[in-house]
């Protein structure tokens, strides 16, 4: 049997002619003319669909006709070809012998011997050369990664921690309009950016302004309040500002429920209590949103007292509180 195992499948006996009624054909092949006509009609319909597609494209007809015609045509074409294969071609069951992949024990031993003995020539006699080559190739493998990885971008340095807010930076909205005392009434909300990041003529906002400096400004009823100890002066006239970057994964926390005084992050539904310093009370966010200290400058514009006192956004290894 081992010989036959190694030979690919071969016909051993020439077969007589197989008729359409041969058991190897499907039942439908008993009436081949009928099946053939059905498949022919299907192909003709497919052809028609493709012609329709061609016309629909050149005449710029509606979208559904364009897509539907090519889809239907492809489906009919495929259906016809598959039906041809299933009903009019020999189905089987035919068999193919599996020749075992494995060799004989002698062949295996010969292979192992070749590997071991030929390697021995390298290793036993020329250890130093082999070692030097391996060292060279290894070092190459390591240093080749340097440009591949390091050149991709700059070192993070403190880029993940620093925003553009400074003492006196005026808050503006997305059109560049400055925030003033009457911009919000209690229960209001607006997204603000540092003034120099928004071009009021074109409405263009810089990338850092959008991505890092974005701040949500709210006004709560009842005048100034203290969110956390040490922040007594941070909320003039009830205005309070928090970094809009969620401390979970950095989505903008733009969803505010004014009666509940709750900021909800739309991505994974972390909920932050605004009156208590945006402390997370539900959901996966781990830390409160950093708060921007506010003040009214001499012109009556709302401005920052200083930068954020901590890194904004989600956590990372180097982040310290």
């Amino acid at each position, binding site marked *: 049997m081992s010989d036959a195992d190694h030979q690919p499948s071969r016909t051993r006996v020439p077969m007589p002619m197989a008729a359409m009624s041969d058991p190897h054909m499907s039942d439908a092949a008993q009436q081949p003319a009928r099946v053939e006509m059905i498949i022919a009609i299907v192909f003709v319909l497919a052809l028609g669909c493709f012609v329709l597609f061609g016309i629909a494209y050149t005449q710029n007809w509606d*979208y559904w006709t364009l897509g539907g015609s090519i889809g239907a045509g492809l489906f009919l074409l495929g259906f016809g070809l598959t039906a041809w294969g299933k009903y009019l071609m020999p189905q089987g069951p035919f068999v193919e012998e599996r020749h075992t992949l494995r060799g004989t024990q002698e062949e295996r031993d010969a292979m192992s011997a070749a590997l071991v003995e030929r390697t021995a020539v390298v290793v036993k006699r020329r250890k130093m050369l082999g070692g030097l080559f391996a060292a060279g190739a290894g070092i190459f493998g390591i240093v080749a990664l340097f440009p591949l990885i390091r050149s991709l971008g700059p070192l993070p340095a403190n880029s993940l921690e620093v925003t553009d807010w400074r003492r006196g930076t005026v808050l503006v909205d997305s059109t560049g309009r400055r925030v*003033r005392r009457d911009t*919000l009434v209690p229960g209001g909300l607006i997204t603000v950016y540092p003034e120099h990041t928004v071009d009021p003529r074109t409405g263009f906002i810089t990338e850092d302004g959008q991505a890092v400096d974005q701040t949500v400004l709210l006004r709560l009823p009842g005048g100034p309040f203290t969110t956390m100890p040490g922040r007594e002066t941070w909320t003039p006239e009830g205005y309070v500002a928090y970094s809009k970057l969620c401390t979970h994964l950095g989505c903008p926390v733009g969803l505010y429920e004014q009666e509940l005084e709750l900021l909800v992050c739309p991505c994974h539904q972390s909920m932050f209590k605004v009156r208590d310093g945006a402390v997370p009370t539900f959901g996966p966010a781990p830390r409160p949103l950093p708060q921007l200290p506010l003040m009214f400058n001499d012109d009556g514009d709302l401005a920052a007292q200083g930068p954020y006192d901590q890194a904004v956004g989600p956590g990372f290894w180097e982040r310290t509180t």
Partner: protein
Amino acid sequence: MGSVRAQTTRTFRTKVLLPGGLLAVAAMASLAMLIPGAAAAGHSDSSSVDISPDQVTTKACGTVSVKGVTGSTPNAGNPFLSSSKTCLNGSLISYGNHYITYANPPKAFVDAGRLLFAQACSSCHGSTANGVSPDGTATIGPNLQGVGAATVDFWVSTGRMPAADVKAVEAERKETRLTAVQALELAAWVNSLVPSVPAVPFPHLQGADQSAGQDLFSLNCAACHTIEGSGDALAFGTNAPSIVNKSVTAQQVVEAIRTGPANMPRFSGNLTDKQVADITSYVTGRLQHPVNPGGFSLGGVGPVAEGFVALLIGVGGLALICFWIGERS
């Protein structure tokens, strides 16, 4: 009642008196814009944009509460950003510009409103709408004094009030029990107790910039209502309703933006009337009539629905075809 006379009166009120009255008011406001220093009593100069709230409470327009009053949700539109105000005998009639005109309901509605309020609202809001019941305890409904005409018109015209279930976390939009005129009557009466702003808005959307509206919508509104406007559940049983629902009118959109109902934030000085009109035009013109060039929109729910279709219809359909092609046993 079925009497023809009563119906004719009601029809007359709905179809003639109301729009006629408000049109007259709006016409006066527009005229007032054209004639600086008009002779109409109490008209103040319109050119300045930055008017502080204090000016509104001058005797020129009577006393109009802007900061809100005792108790419940204080309310304010942004009359100080309007280009004109019209007052008559010391009370604010209308203000606005060619983007949105805000007008208080006619004085004639106050009496009818008082009667209607007593029937439909006083059991929850108190007989003087101050949230205090006769025995001195707080009622279920909040204090409505000082909320302004737009607030009352919004809650009643969307059917949220009268409330179906007073214990629900939030009142939902439903079939209106009261007509549009009745909503204005209630608004007129409540506003007469403590006049306030915003007044009922009448947006003028022709020529609005839908692109600017889309930009503002995605920054201010999509976070709660979703970018397609279909609404979704918020914290603790609250929700942001769908605004693609075609029964949401442009007026209601402006009212919601300016009054901030329930948990919705109140957009006053941070959105100009032009911006509000742009957003409203985008909502009623685009979101409510979505163009879906790519086929059925699958509910506008996004990738979850798309995934179901791809797996059940796409992979599932192809698996069925495999089933046909191949053997079963």
